[in-house]
């Protein structure tokens, strides 16, 4: 059974999803990720789907779950590298994932995480 690797990149965790995920692999990923967010005190999660050719409602749900769970653990999630064909298909499918942050690649994703962290900390500090 393959496992999805979770890499630590500074204060963030990088998850690179390969093609054709098995249900059990997806479950394991969500478990492991939430644990690592806490244990590493991660400030953000980068979900790299640049190798994913097909995102159906199952994967879409998984992405949504990861984003929600991370948020609860005070880590923002950014989905990076979505392929144009996948984006068009998701929108047609009705799964536009409006509440999820996205970026073109890992670099852009990290920039986004950094700036969003700043604004949220400022917002909290000024209360």
């Amino acid at each position: 059974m393959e496992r999805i690797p979770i890499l630590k990149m500074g204060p963030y965790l990088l998850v690179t999803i390969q093609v054709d995920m098995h249900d059990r692999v997806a479950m394991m990923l969500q478990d492991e990720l939430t644990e690592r967010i806490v244990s590493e005190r991660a400030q953000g999660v980068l979900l790299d789907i640049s190798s994913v050719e097909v995102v159906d409602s199952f994967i879409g749900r998984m992405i949504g779950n990861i984003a929600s769970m991370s948020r609860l653990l005070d880590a923002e999630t950014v989905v990076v590298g979505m392929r144009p064909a996948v984006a068009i298909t998701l929108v047609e499918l009705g799964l536009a994932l409006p509440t999820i942050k996205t970026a073109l690649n890992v670099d852009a994703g990290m920039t986004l995480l950094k700036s969003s962290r700043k604004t949220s900390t400022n917002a909290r500090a000024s209360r």
Partner: protein
Amino acid sequence: MPVLRDELIGLRSMDDVIKARQLVRDCAIFQGLSLVDQTKLVTAASELARNTLIHGGGGEMRLQALNDGSRRGVKVMFVDTGPGIPDIELAMKDGYTTRGGLGLGLSGSKRLVNEFEIQSQPGKGTTVSIVRWK
């Protein structure tokens, strides 16, 4: 209608679903569908294959490469002998949900293909047929 290729694949496990996706993708490439159309078809097939497995208790997928004289396409049929869908109209409504969150994906899949047919009888099973033309 001339059928260039005709394959029957069992859908009894997640591995089968994954294999089925790849076969649909190969067929779409073989028929010369654009990348976006390939993705749409494979995504719809993925939804329906999962349905067959999870809601239908397992079943079969039939994959055909069509050649209608002037145009080429891919037809995929999903058959199961599961509990069936009691109210198809309701199931086809956007946002309809049974256990499992984002619903049966039927309405979404319909938008991804050119032709969509569904037949279901409670207690007998369900058959869904989709076609994507080049």
